[in-house]
C-alpha cells in the first residue's frame, strides 16, 4: 500500500481514540469529582527508505484538566468539597489513593469512609472515627471535625509530589508520594461536580466526526488513484 494510506490510517486510528475520550467525558458528566480528559497528538516520522521520512500523527499522551468543577450544595453532613488545590486521601486495599470526590459517610463502626467503603485518611494517614453518640459534626475549612468542644481529628488534604495516575472510581494514584497541604479550604455540605463542559465536548465530537469522514475521503481518493494507476499500467 502507498504511504499516503498509512499516514491517513494513523490519523483515523487517533480519531477513534479521541472519540473514546470524548465519550468517556460525556458519560462522566454527572460523576462527582471527575476531571475531564484531553487526548494529545504528536507527529512521528517514519523512515521510508530513499525518499526520506513520512510524517504520521498518533495519540502520544493524554492530559486531564484539573480545573475545579462547580460546587453543588447538598447539605449532607459528610459531603465535602475542596475549594482550590488538593485531594482527599483514602486507604484502599491497593494502597492510598487521591480523590476530589468527597461523598463520604460513616461506616457501621463510626469510621469516616467513602462510597466504596474505603476509610478516609486524616492528617498523618490515620483513619477518622466519630463516637456513636455524636449526631452532628461540624467540619471546618481546614478539615477539623468537631461537635461542640470535642474534636475527632482532622481530614488530610494533600498535593501530589509528581504526576498523577488515573484509577477508576475517580481515584488517582500518586506514584511519587504526596505531602499535606497546611491551609486547605474544605467546604462542608457541598460536592464538587464533574468539570466536563458539555459544549466543549460536543464541539470536539463534531470535530472528530468530520475529521474522520475527511480521512475516509482521503483513503477513497487514494484507492481510486491506485486503481487508475493499475488500469493505466495494464493497457
Amino acid at each position, binding site marked *: 500500500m502507498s504511504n499516503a494510506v498509512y499516514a491517513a490510517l494513523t490519523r483515523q486510528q487517533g480519531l477513534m481514540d479521541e472519540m473514546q475520550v470524548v465519550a468517556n467525558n460525556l458519560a462522566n458528566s454527572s460523576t*462527582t469529582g471527575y476531571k475531564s*480528559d484531553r487526548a494529545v497528538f504528536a507527529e512521528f516520522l517514519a523512515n521510508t527508505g530513499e525518499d526520506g521520512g513520512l510524517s504520521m500523527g498518533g495519540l502520544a499522551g493524554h492530559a486531564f484538566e484539573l480545573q475545579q468543577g462547580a460546587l453543588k450544595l447538598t447539605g*449532607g453532613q459528610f459531603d465535602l468539597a475542596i475549594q482550590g488545590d488538593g485531594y482527599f486521601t483514602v486507604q484502599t486495599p491497593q494502597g492510598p489513593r487521591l480523590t476530589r470526590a468527597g461523598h463520604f459517610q460513616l461506616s457501621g463502626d463510626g469510621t469516616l469512609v467513602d462510597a466504596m467503603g474505603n476509610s478516609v485518611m486524616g492528617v498523618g494517614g490515620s483513619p477518622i472515627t466519630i463516637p456513636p453518640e455524636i*449526631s452532628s459534626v461540624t467540619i471546618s475549612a481546614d478539615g477539623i471535625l468537631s461537635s461542640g468542644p470535642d474534636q475527632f481529628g482532622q481530614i488530610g488534604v494533600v498535593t501530589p509530589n509528581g504526576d498523577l495516575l488515573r484509577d477508576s472510581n475517580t481515584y488517582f494514584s500518586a506514584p511519587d508520594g504526596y505531602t499535606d497541604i497546611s491551609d486547605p479550604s474544605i467546604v462542608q455540605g457541598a460536592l464538587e461536580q464533574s468539570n466536563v463542559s458539555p459544549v466543549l465536548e460536543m464541539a470536539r465530537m463534531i470535530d472528530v466526526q468530520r475529521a474522520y469522514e475527511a480521512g475516509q475521503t482521503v483513503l477513497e481518493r487514494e484507492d481510486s488513484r491506485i486503481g487508475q494507476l493499475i488500469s493505466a499500467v495494464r493497457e
Partner: protein
Amino acid sequence: MKSLQIAATGMAAQQLRVDVISNNIANMSTAAYRPRVAEFSDLMYQQYLTPGTLTSQVGTTVPAGIQIGTGVRPSTVSMEITQGSLRQTNSELDLAIDGAGFFEVTLPSGESAYTRDGKFNRSVDGQMVTMDGYPLADGITIPDNAQKITISRDGEVVAYFADGQAGQSIGTLSLTRFVNEKGLEALGDNLFRATEASGTPSQVVPGTEGAGYIRQGFLEDSGVDVVKEISDLIEAQRGYELNSKVITASDEMLAATTRLR
C-alpha cells in the same frame, strides 16, 4: 468502536438517575420519606502507555501517558439525611421525631424494623401499631377505658381515664440511633432494617445522644425538595441526550468506514 459502549454506560447512568428522581417525586407526600441521590464514579482506565514509562536510556519518562477511560457506573444511591418539616395533625397517636432517631417496630417474623413514620393507631387489643399493624417494640398497650393519651417529649406515655383524675403512666417510648443511617436497608412501607453498614442499633432515651425529642400530634413530612428534583431531572435528561449524540456520531463514523468498500 468503544465510544459506543462508553456512551451506553453514560445513558444507563442517566437513566438510573431519572429512576431515582422519579421515585423521590412519587414520594413527595410520603411521611418521613428521605430522598435518595444517585452518585457515579468512572470505570477503570485502559493503560495504553503508562505514565512514567522510560523513553530513553538517560532516564526521561513519559509525563502523562495514554490512559483511556471506559465509561461510568453508579457507585451508590444513598439516602439524604434530612429532617422533614413537622406538620400538625392533632391526632394523639401521631408522633414525629425532631432529630436523628427511629421508632422500633416488630415485624410479623419477629425481626425488628425501624421507621420514622410516626402514624400510629390503636389495634383491637389496644396495642400501639403502625399503619400496617406492626406493634411498637416498646410494647405500649392502651387500656380500653382510656379517654386521652399524652406522650411527653422524652417518651413517657400517660393515659387519662376520667376528667379531673390524675393520669397513669402506661409505658415509655424509646428511640433507636444508628451510627450510619445511610447504611440502613430500606424494606418499603417506610421501614428500614439494620445492616452491617448501619452499625448496631442503640436504644436511647428521646432527647439524648442526638436522637431528638418526640412530638405528639405532629407527623414528619417527606424530605423531598421538588424544585431540586426537577432541576436534577432536567440535568439528567440533557445528560442522556448528550450521550445519545455520541452514539449517533460514533455510528456515523462507523458508517463512513463501511462506505470505503
